[in-house]
């Protein structure tokens, strides 16, 4: 539901049902709301059957990549030769995204239950919940829930009376966007710089501590208990016509909208409706100018594209962008797109891990060129240069941070070229002091 606002009729509230309900944070409150029934049920099934159910549901990774969750679990070795690990990616750092934060703040036991079911399915005894360091409140709440879960025997050496151990620990990040990338996250758990690793090997072969590992996003894992409880068919039915994108999705809407917040809708929901109806449209009579629908790393949409965009994995691709993490950033007609794009690239330049040349040098150079344009010192060839650098930064590095920096630049120049030209020609007064 559109926390902190009242739920909207057009929402389909599954994950966010108890947002704002303080009792749901506690073990007793959670059990009263049907909590841990799914875990009990899962433990009575064969692990492969749990995986099969999740696979059948069509649940796809909610962290950004959209990889089918159950399918990912099948990559883990069937025959266990040593420890298996689950890592829960709670490093939510993609600008525009703040859904996992709410799941952890309001329904920490939903996450614990989802993790426990996933651990059972992939035969892991240990799960690390990697929470970004800035999330002080979610860390406190999830830790309190973990303490309760241990006290109640959900976790521990004899989890749920199964005779098998399940251990879950929070690993606190310390300020690095890139640790949301799964291999960087594993390095960070291992006590290393958060550098993404070259693949192969893939995590299911050699992940954290060199052992088979699965990494899932908070929202993905929180959806698992519902799938186990109500069945894959129910979950699959929560879509608006596209069987490749199923279930509900939390969209974090921010920027220039009247009611920013998290909205839970079924896959296939129209983006325009989300912004204009659920979020109440633009504030103070402003009009929509642009929207980034999937977190800051995906291409920008114009007003017209936004109004036509369908919010599921394929729908976003059809609109020339990506569903990503579901972080919807809305810009109204006052927004200076050149400045906003510069600000986004500055984020990536700040967060580049420094490994790959294109990313380390290219992100910072891109910022400099944009700053020069904003200072009224741009020249016409600068735009072609930006596009060429973006090309050199795309698809050539270990991870996609470099690509993510390039995406808004390319789509921004393509769709809002006149704003760049206005700075370059001098028609618009400089927004930054001269360099």
């Amino acid at each position: 539901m559109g926390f902190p606002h009242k739920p909207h009729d057009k929402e389909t509230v599954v994950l966010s049902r108890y947002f704002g309900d303080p009792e749901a944070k506690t073990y007793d409150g959670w059990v009263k709301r049907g909590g841990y029934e799914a875990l009990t049920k899962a433990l009575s099934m064969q692990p492969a059957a749990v995986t099969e159910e999740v696979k059948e549901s069509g649940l796809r990774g909610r962290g950004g990549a959209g990889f089918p969750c159950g399918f990912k679990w099948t990559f883990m070795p069937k025959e266990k030769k040593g420890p298996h690990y689950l890592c829960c990616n709670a490093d939510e750092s993609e600008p525009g995204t703040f859904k996992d934060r709410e799941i952890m703040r309001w329904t920490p036991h939903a996450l614990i239950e989802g993790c426990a079911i996933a651990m059972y399915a992939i035969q892991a005894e240990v799960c690390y919940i990697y929470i970004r360091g800035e999330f002080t409140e979610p860390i406190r709440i999830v830790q309190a829930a973990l303490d309760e879960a241990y006290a109640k025997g959900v976790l521990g050496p004899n989890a749920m009376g199964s005779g098998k151990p399940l251990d879950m620990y929070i690993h606190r990040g310390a300020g690095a966007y890139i640790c949301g990338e799964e291999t960087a996250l594993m390095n960070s758990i291992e006590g290393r710089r958060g550098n993404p690793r070259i693949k192969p090997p893939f995590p299911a072969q050699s992940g954290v501590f060199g052992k088979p590992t699965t990494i899932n996003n908070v929202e993905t894992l929180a959806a698992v208990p519902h799938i186990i409880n109500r069945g894959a068919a129910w979950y699959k039915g929560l879509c608006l016509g596209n069987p490749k994108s199923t279930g509900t999705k939390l969209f974090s809407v921010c920027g220039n909208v009247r009611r920013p917040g998290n909205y839970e809708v079924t896959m296939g929901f129209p983006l325009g409706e989300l912004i204009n109806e659920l979020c109440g449209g633009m504030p103070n009579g402003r009009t929509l100018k642009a929207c980034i629908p999937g977190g800051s790393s995906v291409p920008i949409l114009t007003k017209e594209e936004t109004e036509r965009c369908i919010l599921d994995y394929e729908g976003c691709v059809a609109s020339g962008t990506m569903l990503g993490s579901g972080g919807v950033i809305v810009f109204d007609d006052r927004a200076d797109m050149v400045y906003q794009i510069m600000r986004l690239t500055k984020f990536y330049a700040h967060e580049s891990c420094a490994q790959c040349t294109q990313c380390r040098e290219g992100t910072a150079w891109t910022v400099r060129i944009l700053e020069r344009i904003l200072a009224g010192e741009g020249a016409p060839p600068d735009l072609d240069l930006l596009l060429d650098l973006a090309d050199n930064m795309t698809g050539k590095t270990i991870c996609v941070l470099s690509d993510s920096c390039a995406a808004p630049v390319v789509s921004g120049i393509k769709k809002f070229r006149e704003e760049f030209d206005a700075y370059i020609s001098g028609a618009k007064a400089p927004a930054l002091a001269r360099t």
Partner: protein
Amino acid sequence: MKATGAYEAVFTGERRAALDRVLERYPTKRAALLPALWLVQEARGWIADEAMSEVAQLLSLTAAYVKGVVTFYTMYRQHPVGRHFIQVCTTSPCGVCGAEDVVRAVLEHTGCGDLGATSRDGRFTVIEVECLGACGFATPVLIDDDFIESVTPETVPALLRRYA
């Protein structure tokens, strides 16, 4: 940078016990590095070179390795800061909602003047940070471990009064 005066070990008594509990969670000592650095920062407010050496020794690493890790993660502070450390998000989603005005208000009301500087009374240090992950609650501000949502220039003075 180095600590001023004689260095006192961080990991004694209860903090040493806390580190031992952390070590039980991981199959390697190295993996306890991030938690150990958090324990140092909680105890001292920042992480001095000597503390990096202390952590390195406890975890069978080298101080050079530890420093490489410390400098990667921006939340680890390599310099002393004021009694209260204020982090204001200014990434795009908050930026379009007026985050830069919040920064100006915070700088003015803390008396810090500049980003990264500590106020003359030693009370505050203010920095801008990239996305705090609460974009729907612009502008989020992290003061020490308190995560405060929806800060506006108008709410800044009252907010700061809570931090002596």
